[in-house]
C-alpha cells in the first residue's frame, strides 16, 4: 500500500484536497495542505495519506474543522509516533537511495541516542521530534535557505525551546545558551559575514543526536577548525593536568556559548584575568605568563607604532607599499604568536613573536625612510626655490634697469 499505487493516489488525494479547500473555510488542515505544496516530499511523489492514515487513529480525537467526509482522516499522529513514522522511510537505505544515492539513513538511530530521543521514548512529549525542527508540512532540504535547519536558521529553531525560560525551567535547565551564542564571534561570523563554516548549535551538539558534548569530547569539535591551537594544547603540560581534574580543554578559558574574541590582556595573573583563575604570581608559571604577556604587548605596540607612522607617511603623499607588506607579515606573525600561546611555554612562542617584532620594526623603518625621503624632497625644493628666487631677484633688477620705453 505504501509504495504501490502511491503515485495515482497522490493525484486523487491532492485533487480532493484542492476541491475541499474551495468548499470550506480556511482552517489548520487547509494551512497544512497549502504548506505541503512546497514540500520536498511532493517531488518524491508522496501524498497526505502517506503519513496520515485513512482511519481515525485510535484513542485520539482528530483536529478536523468540519464534518465533511475526509477531514477527520487527516489528524495528526501522536508525538511519540512521529519519529518512528518518519523513520519508516528515512531509515530504509534501499528506499532512500532512489532519491539520493549518498543520503544518510542513520538519523533515527542518532535520535534514539540523543537526549530528545531518550526522553520522547520515555513518554516525555515536550521535547523535540522530527517535525519540530523540520516542520510537518512544507519540509525543505537543509541547504534550502528557507529551511528552519539551514545553517543561518539553526539557532533560531533550537532557540524556540532552548531560549524559552518557561519551557526550560520545566526541565531544570537554563535558557541562556542561544542568547549567549548570539553574542559570540561565531554568531558574528555566520550572521554578519555570512561565513557558513562558523559553528551553530548543531556543529557542537549534533543535530539528530543532539546531546550536550561531554567534557572530554567538546575539544574535538573545536579542533576541527582550531586545529593548530588544539595540537599545541595537547602537546603541552596542560593536557594531562586538565584530564586529571576533569576540566574541558577549551572551555576553561574560552567558554562554550558566549565565545568572545580573546585579547592579549587575558594573559595575566592579575585578579579577574583568565590565567588568574588558576595561576598566581608566585610560581614559575606566573613568571612565564608575565613574560608571554610582555612579548605580546611589545609586538602589539610595535605594530600600532608602525601602522601609525606608515599612515602618516601615506597622508604626506609618500608611497609605502613595502612597509605595508612588512606590516602584513608582522600581523601574520602576531596571529601565529597568539596561537602559540596555547603551547603554554616560552620556547616556540618567543621565536615567532621575535620574528613578528622584527617585521614590525622593518615596517617602521620603511615608514621612517619614507619620512626621510619626504625631508629630502623638501630640501631639494628649498634649493630649487632658492635658485629660482635668486634668478627672479636678478631678473627683477634687470627689468628695472631696462631703458625707459619710448627712449
Amino acid at each position, binding site marked *: 500500500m505504501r509504495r504501490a499505487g502511491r503515485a495515482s493516489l497522490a493525484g486523487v488525494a491532492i485533487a480532493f484536497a484542492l476541491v475541499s479547500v474551495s468548499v470550506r473555510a480556511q482552517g489548520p488542515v487547509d494551512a497544512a495542505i497549502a504548506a505541503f505544496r512546497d514540500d520536498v516530499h511532493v517531488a518524491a511523489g508522496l501524498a497526505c495519506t502517506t503519513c496520515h492514515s485513512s482511519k481515525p487513529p485510535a484513542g485520539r480525537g482528530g483536529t478536523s474543522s468540519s464534518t465533511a467526509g475526509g477531514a477527520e482522516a487527516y489528524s495528526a499522529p501522536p508525538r511519540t509516533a512521529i519519529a518512528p513514522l518518519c523513520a519508516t522511510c528515512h531509515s530504509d537505505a534501499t528506499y532512500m537511495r532512489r532519491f539520493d544515492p549518498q543520503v544518510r539513513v542513520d538519523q533515527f538511530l542518532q535520535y534514539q541516542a540523543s537526549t530528545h530521543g531518550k526522553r520522547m521514548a520515555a513518554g516525555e512529549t515536550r521535547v523535540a521530534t522530527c517535525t519540530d525542527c523540520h516542520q510537518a508540512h512544507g519540509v525543505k532540504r537543509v541547504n534550502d535557505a528557507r529551511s528552519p535547519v539551514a545553517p543561518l536558521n539553526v539557532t533560531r529553531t533550537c532557540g524556540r525551546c532552548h531560549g524559552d525560560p518557561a519551557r526550560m525551567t520545566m526541565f531544570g535547565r537554563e535558557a541562556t545558551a542561544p542568547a549567549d551564542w548570539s553574542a559570540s564571534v561565531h554568531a558574528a561570523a555566520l550572521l554578519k559575514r555570512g561565513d557558513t563554516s562558523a559553528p551553530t548549535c548543531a556543529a557542537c551538539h549534533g543535530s539528530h543526536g543532539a546531546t550536550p558534548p561531554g567534557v572530554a569530547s567538546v575539544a574535538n569539535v573545536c579542533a576541527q577548525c582550531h586545529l593548530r591551537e588544539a595540537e599545541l594544547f595537547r602537546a603541552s603540560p596542560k593536557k594531562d593536568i586538565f584530564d586529571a581534574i576533569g576540566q574541558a580543554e577549551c572551555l576553561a578559558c574560552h567558554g562554550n556559548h558566549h565565545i568572545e574574541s580573546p585579547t592579549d590582556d587575558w594573559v595575566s595573573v592579575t585578579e579577574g584575568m583568565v590565567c588568574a583563575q588558576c595561576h598566581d604570581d608566585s610560581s614559575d608559571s606566573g613568571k612565564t605568563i608575565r613574560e608571554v604577556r610582555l612579548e605580546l604587548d611589545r609586538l602589539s605596540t610595535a605594530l600600532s607604532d608602525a601602522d601609525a607612522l606608515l599612515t602618516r607617511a601615506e597622508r604626506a*603623499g609618500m*608611497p609605502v607599499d613595502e612597509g605595508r607588506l612588512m606590516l602584513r607579515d608582522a600581523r601574520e606573525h602576531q596571529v601565529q604568536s597568539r596561537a602559540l600561546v596555547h603551547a603554554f611555554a616560552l620556547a616556540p612562542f618567543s621565536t615567532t613573536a621575535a620574528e613578528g617584532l622584527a617585521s614590525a620594526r622593518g615596517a617602521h623603518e620603511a615608514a621612517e625612510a619614507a619620512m626621510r625621503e619626504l625631508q629630502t624632497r623638501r630640501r631639494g625644493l628649498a634649493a630649487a626655490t632658492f635658485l*629660482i628666487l635668486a634668478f627672479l631677484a636678478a631678473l627683477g633688477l634687470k627689468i628695472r634697469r631696462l631703458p625707459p620705453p619710448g627712449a
Partner: protein
Amino acid sequence: MSARFRSWLEERLPLSDMVDALRHKTVPHHRYSIWYYFGGMTLFLFGIQVGSGALLLLYYRPSAAEAYESVQFIVTRVPFGWLVRSIHAWSANLMVASAFAHLFSVLFLHAYRRPRELTWVTGIILLLLTLAFGFTGYLLPWNDVSFFATRVGTDIAATVPVIGRGIVRFLRGGNDVSGATLTRLFGFHVAILPAIATALIGLHLLLIQRHGMSVPPSIERRAATDPDAVRSIPFLPHFVLRDLFAWTAALAMLAALATFYPSELGTKADPFAAAPAGIRPEWYFLWTFETLKHVPPTLAGINGEFLAVIAMGVGAGGALVLPFVARSTHRGRRLVVWVGVASLTFMSVMTALALAGAAP
C-alpha cells in the same frame, strides 16, 4: 664662428625677419595692463602640461588592468616620478584658473570688440577644450574617486533630450564606465584634444599678432586728455622679461605645491563597489554640480535638471557669440560687465557652497 653659423641659418630661415618684427612690436602699458599676462601664463602652463604629460606617457599604461599600477610605479619607482605627476596635476588646476582669469579679464576690459571677435571665439573654444582636458585626464589614474566622478559626470549628458544617451555612449565607449572609457578618454586626452588645441592656439596667437593688444575703452577715453594714461613698451625685451618673471614665479609655485601637496594615489577603481561618500568632480566643475543639486525637480512641468543643462548650454552659446551681440555703446558695455559680474558671482557662490557642503 657664431657669425658664420648665423649667416648660414639666415640664408635658409627667415630668422632676422621674425626677430625684426618682434623688435618693433610694442605692447600698451596702462593701469590694467597687468591682466595681459594671463594669456601668456595660460600658454606657459599648457606647455608645462605637454612636457610633463609627454614624460608621463613614457611610463603610463592606459588599460583598466594596468593604469593604477603604472601610476603607482611612476610615483614610487621612477626617479622624480612623484614630481612629474604632481606638477602635471597641479598645473592642470592652475591652467584652468588662469584660463578663467584670462576670460574674465578680457571680458571686463572689452577686448572682444571689433576687430578681435575671432580671437574671442577661438578663446572660448580653447577654454572648453581646457575643461575637456581636465575631465578626460581625471579618469586616467583609474582610482575610486576618478572612476565615480567620471560616471556621475557622464550621467549629466543623459539629460540632453534625444541625443543624450548617444552622447553618453560616445563618451563612455559603452553603456557604463569601463576599461573602454579609459582607453577612449586617454585617446582624447593625449591625441585628439592636443591636436585641436594646438591648431586653435596657433590661430589665436596669429590673430593676437595681427591685431596687437587691445586697450580698454575707458583708457582710450582717458588717453584723449591725458597722454600718460597709456604708454607703449617694447615687446622685446621689456614685456618678454616680465612674462619670464611671471612664468618663473609660477614654476616655483608649482614645485612647492607638488612637494607639499602631492597628488594621492587613492584606491584602485572597483566598478562593482558602492560609490564612496563625498564623490565630487574637480573644483572647476563643482559649480555645475551644485547648481544641479539646487534646481527643483520640475519647473512648469519640465524636468529641472534638463532645464539647468539647457541653461548652461545657452550660457556657453551666449559666451561664444558675445562679440556679435554686444553693442559697442557705453550702455551695451555696462550690460556686458553686469552679465560678467553676475556669472562670476554665481559660479563662485556655487563653488563655495559645494566646498562647504562637502567639508565633514
